């Protein structure tokens, strides 16, 4: 049996760079606001609703805004098995909070709000031919001094 090929679980949301994956967003050329994910009708800056948007790779590090571990199996069309952890990470330059799975190998007991996090790739599910890959967040204590503080937005 041949090895399954790695393909993204969703097309165009992140790069497949194994060492340093990045989320692929867009930036409004007039407003400077960032938008992610790229393939859905997401929000617009109301001061420039019709501006052109250029593709841009987002920061691959940020600070943990919040997180939770789910202990029940989620309903269809979910593919996760419990327990699984979801993280919300705030990207400093983009001033945007992004939801994503915690990295498969990471320990949720180590998570603390405000800690530095880094983007990696990991498996979501597989079939006979493919392994479907998703972006994930992993704690990155070594970069703590190199990114700014969390913004402290209200709950």
């Amino acid at each position, binding site marked *: 049996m041949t090895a399954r090929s790695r393909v993204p*679980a*969703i097309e165009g949301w992140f790069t497949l760079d194994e060492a340093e994956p990045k989320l692929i967003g867009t930036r*409004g050329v007039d*407003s*400077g*606001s*960032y*938008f*992610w*994910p790229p*393939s*859905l009708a*997401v*929000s*617009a*800056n*109301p*001061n420039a609703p019709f501006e052109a948007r250029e593709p841009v790779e987002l920061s691959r590090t940020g600070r943990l*805004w*919040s*997180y*939770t*571990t*789910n*202990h*029940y199996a*989620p*309903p*269809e*069309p*979910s*593919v*996760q098995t419990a327990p*699984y952890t*979801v993280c*919300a990470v705030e990207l400093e*330059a*983009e*001033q*945007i*909070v*992004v*939801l*994503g*799975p915690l990295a498969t190998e990471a320990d949720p007991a180590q998570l603390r*709000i*405000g800690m530095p996090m880094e983007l990696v790739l990991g498996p*979501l599910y597989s079939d006979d031919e493919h392994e479907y890959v*998703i972006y994930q967040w992993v704690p990155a204590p070594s970069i703590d001094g190199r990114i700014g503080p969390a*913004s*402290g*937005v*209200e*709950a």
Partner: protein
Amino acid sequence: MSGDRDLAVIGVGMHPWGKWGRNFVEYGVVAARAALDDAGITWPDVDFVAGGETVRNGYPGYVAGATFAQALGWQGARVASSYAACASGATALQSARAQILAGLCDVALVIGADTTPKGFLAPNKGERGDDPDWLRFRLLGATNPTYFALYARRRVELYGATRDDFAQVKVKNSLHGLENPNARYRKATAVADVLTSPLVADPLSLLDICATSDGAAAMIVTSMEWARAHGHADPVRIRGVSTVTPTYPNPVIEMPNFATDSAAGIGALPTHGFKSSIARAAYEEAGIGPEDLSCAEVYDLSTALELDWYEHIGLCEPGDAEGLLRSGATTLGGRVPVNPSGGLACFGEAVPAQAIAQVCELAWQLRGQAGARQVEGAQVGLSINQGLFGHGSCVIVSR
């Protein structure tokens, strides 16, 4: 004081909440009949039907106004159906209000009913890779409680809230709903019951999170002029209805989104977050403030979310909700009881009916007809919730 944009609520009614497993139209008919009887009018007196929609019950659920009009017997009334997720009921009320205040009709039935599946609310079936509500389940397993838990953990981090604080909300609401005949759960709950119930999405456990229920709520609203001409000298009045959307950039991650708005390139965040802005718009319309409230019905999808609402409706400053709860101010007998009905903790959520049910409870409170859960001397009430996809919902009523 009476504003010239007030509506009269002359009748309210419900079908009890539960897990009855029957068609939602049946529940709606029961609630409509109760509201008509309560108003002392008959079905042909209604000239506008505003239905709160649901998207899980297939074709009839999408056209709620007409579905209920047909089930009650076609009599020519005009109709509208509103979909705004949890805010559908308030949006339906807003549609009836616009018709009445424009002078296009006098008497409207506002109605919502639901039959819910077991377990987590989930998106419709099919492969829909361009639908964020489908993708959040597929890619993240991000159920509704996942989002509730992200907010709850923010309270723990920012304000030192504890699981014990969250459990106290459930204890309070269980006490309030004990003798509410329309509530599904009528059983006292202890803090230990909550803390020992299975974790769903930490820090929230099963008893921190509301169930999904079958149920229906209806109300009859009229112009003030019509009410007075038909023997309702001092009806409960709708003073303000807020159905606002967020203001960019919304820095809070909202269901079913994968990301917040970006605040880059915008200068400063809005002064008020989305939830606060929902209440502010209703207060402004009503010309009253949080200090005037006798009671409030807030959307306790989770115990921790009830605490968020205390702050967003101005009962206290951010970070003070746990203290306000523990002071007893929001318990029956306190300064401003919150969820005297028992809230979603005792009802579970019947999505298109729930915002209407909140107003039904306020009407009973303001008429002094709430029995064992009566808020003494209630004069002003507020109901509030937030529907998926950016729907605000807040109604202010007074005598």
